[in-house]
Each structure stands twice: as structure tokens, then as C-alpha cells.
């Protein structure tokens, strides 16, 4: 067999293995992506900005915020700072994956660039099938997720005016996905205290500060509590209780 064919077969094998793990993301990105694309063109922008944004930005909430700012004045610094704040939670994903991705070279560059909430969530729950290489498997997941986003945002932008069915509430697929991965993680006992800290601190910050302001303070409290409880939590890790 010739080399390109062998290569194509390997790529196909990884995509096939990774596809099931991406199905919840497919459902969610289909809806969120359509919503973004429709918003983009109804705001008066060319639909071609949809694939452009799906590649240079590739962040759901970041892109939605960006449309709002694009309707105001030309202010790249304001855009930069706003998106930095909106996406600050990604710092936690980068921090959690430093050692896992280490030494993966160009694979790592793509995995870090494409690390959305949803892809990070799937990385935390997917088990690498036997006989497959972890970095290629994760890249297949990340690549498919970005492909869904690219297609869905473009479809919304180019064909949004022809879409007429009511899909209100389908964005709940993300909430349900994060919730199930939470449940999956707290099956392992050492994860329970950190999950409780994440939940408690977020609810507290939300109640005190309201939905628009709570995320960064919640992150700070989570980080503070995790660091303060380190000796105790690491003890649980070792003891396995």
C-alpha cells in the first residue's frame, strides 16, 4: 500500500474512535454555532466573518461578546481586554493540562489553541481506547469539535434566514454534559472535596455578585480554597478516601 493511503486510514481510525465522545458537543455546537452565525449576519456583517472567527477566535462566549463590541467603535484594546476577562476561566484548563500535554510538540500547540470549555470537558471524561495514541486521540476530538463549530457558525451565517424551527432550550445540552462529567468525576473520592469547593464558591459568588460579575471572583475563591486546603486534600489523595 502507498503511504498516503496508510496515513488516511490511520486518520480515519482516530476520527472513528473519537467521534462518540464528541456527540454531545456536536449537539451543543450545532445550536450555539447557528445562533452565533445568525446573530452575526443580522448584525449586518458579511457571513464570511463566521469561518474567519471560528478559526482566529474559536470561543463561543468570546465570539458572542465580540459581536457586541464590533457594533460599537473600533477599539481592539477594549476587545482584547474584554475577551481576556470573559475567557479567563480557560486559564484553569491550561493549568490542568500542562503536564498531560508536555512533550507533544505541534500536537500540543493545536490542543492548547483549541481548548474550549466543551473540549476540556470531554478530555476529562474520555478514556483513550486501547492501542490508540493519546495525543492523536485528543487531537481528533478537538479537531472534530472545531469542525462542528466552523460548519455550524457558517451555516447560521449563510443560511440563517432559512432556518425557522424552534430549538429553544437545546443549549441545555452543555449544562447536562458538564453535569454528567461532574458526576463521573466525583465517583472517584479524592475529587469530591474539590468539586464541592468549585460548586460552593461559584454559588456563593453568584448569589452575592449576580450573573454578570461572579465568575472571576469565584475562580479566585476556588483557587484560594484549593491552595489553603492543599495538605488536607493531598492527604485524601494518598489515602484514597
Amino acid at each position: 500500500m502507498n503511504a498516503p493511503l496508510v496515513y488516511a486510514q490511520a486518520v480515519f481510525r482516530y476520527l472513528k474512535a473519537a467521534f462518540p465522545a464528541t456527540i454531545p458537543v456536536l449537539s451543543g455546537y450545532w445550536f450555539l454555532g447557528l445562533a452565533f452565525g445568525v446573530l452575526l449576519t443580522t448584525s449586518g456583517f458579511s457571513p464570511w466573518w463566521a469561518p474567519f472567527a471560528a478559526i482566529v477566535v474559536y470561543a463561543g462566549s468570546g465570539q458572542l461578546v465580540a459581536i457586541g463590541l464590533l457594533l460599537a467603535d473600533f477599539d481592539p484594546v477594549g476587545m482584547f481586554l474584554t475577551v481576556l476577562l470573559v475567557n479567563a476561566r480557560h486559564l484553569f484548563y491550561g493549568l490542568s493540562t500542562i503536564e498531560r500535554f508536555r512533550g507533544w510538540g505541534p500536537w500540543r500547540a493545536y490542543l492548547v489553541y483549541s481548548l474550549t470549555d466543551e473540549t476540556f470537558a470531554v478530555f476529562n471524561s474520555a478514556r483513550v481506547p486501547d492501542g490508540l495514541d493519546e495525543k492523536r486521540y485528543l487531537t481528533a476530538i478537538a479537531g472534530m469539535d472545531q469542525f462542528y463549530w466552523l460548519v455550524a457558525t457558517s451555516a447560521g451565517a449563510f443560511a440563517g434566514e432559512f432556518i425557522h424551527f424552534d430549538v429553544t432550550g437545546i443549549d441545555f445540552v452543555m449544562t447536562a454534559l458538564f453535569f454528567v462529567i461532574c458526576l463521573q468525576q466525583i465517583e472517584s473520592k479524592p475529587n469530591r472535596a474539590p468539586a464541592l469547593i468549585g460548586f460552593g464558591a461559584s454559588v456563593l459568588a453568584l448569589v452575592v455578585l449576580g450573573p454578570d460579575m461572579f465568575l472571576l471572583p469565584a475562580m479566585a475563591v476556588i483557587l484560594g480554597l484549593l491552595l489553603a486546603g492543599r495538605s488536607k486534600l493531598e492527604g485524601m489523595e494518598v489515602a484514597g478516601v
Partner: protein
Amino acid sequence: MADWQIAVMFLAAGLATVITRALPALVFAGRDVPPVVSYLAKVLPPATMAMLVVFCLRKVSVITQPFGLPELLALAATGALWFWRKNVILSVLVGTALYMVLLRVM
């Protein structure tokens, strides 16, 4: 806004996004990760997933109709189904379908 200005705005948004994702890796590039970071890499994922659930539900009001009941019931069903069948996709899709129905009837 001119096309080049729109492009620059999207590039600024993209730069900010990639910085949030890559900063930790860049900070510790080419040196050993201190034990505290290895520790955080273990405890942050469960804490972050719990935070994301709250983030998704941040706009839900428990003091006005329908009092967050569609979310509560749909998550309860999602969780129950997951404990029963241990199938992520099944739980997520059934939970979402139930939520969409509840939104329309409650």
C-alpha cells in the same frame, strides 16, 4: 467599520483567547512544574466542571416562574439516568430533550 478593522477586532479577540489557554503552559515552558501546579492539575478539573455547571445556570431565576424547575428536573433526570446506565451521551440527550419539553409546558 472597514473590513480590515473588523479583521483586527477579531484578531484581538483571538489573541486574548489563545493567551488565556496558553499562558500557564508558556509560564512553565522548559522547566519542571512545581509540585503546587501538579496538585492544581489534579484538583482543578473537578472544581472547574462544578463551576461550569453553575456558570451555565447563572441566568436561571429561582424566585420567578417557573422557579428553575425545568433545570432542576432535567438535571435530576440526567443524573438518575447516568447513575443507572453510565452512558454520557444517553443521559445528556435525554436530559436535554426533557428540558426542552418542560420549557414549553411549565
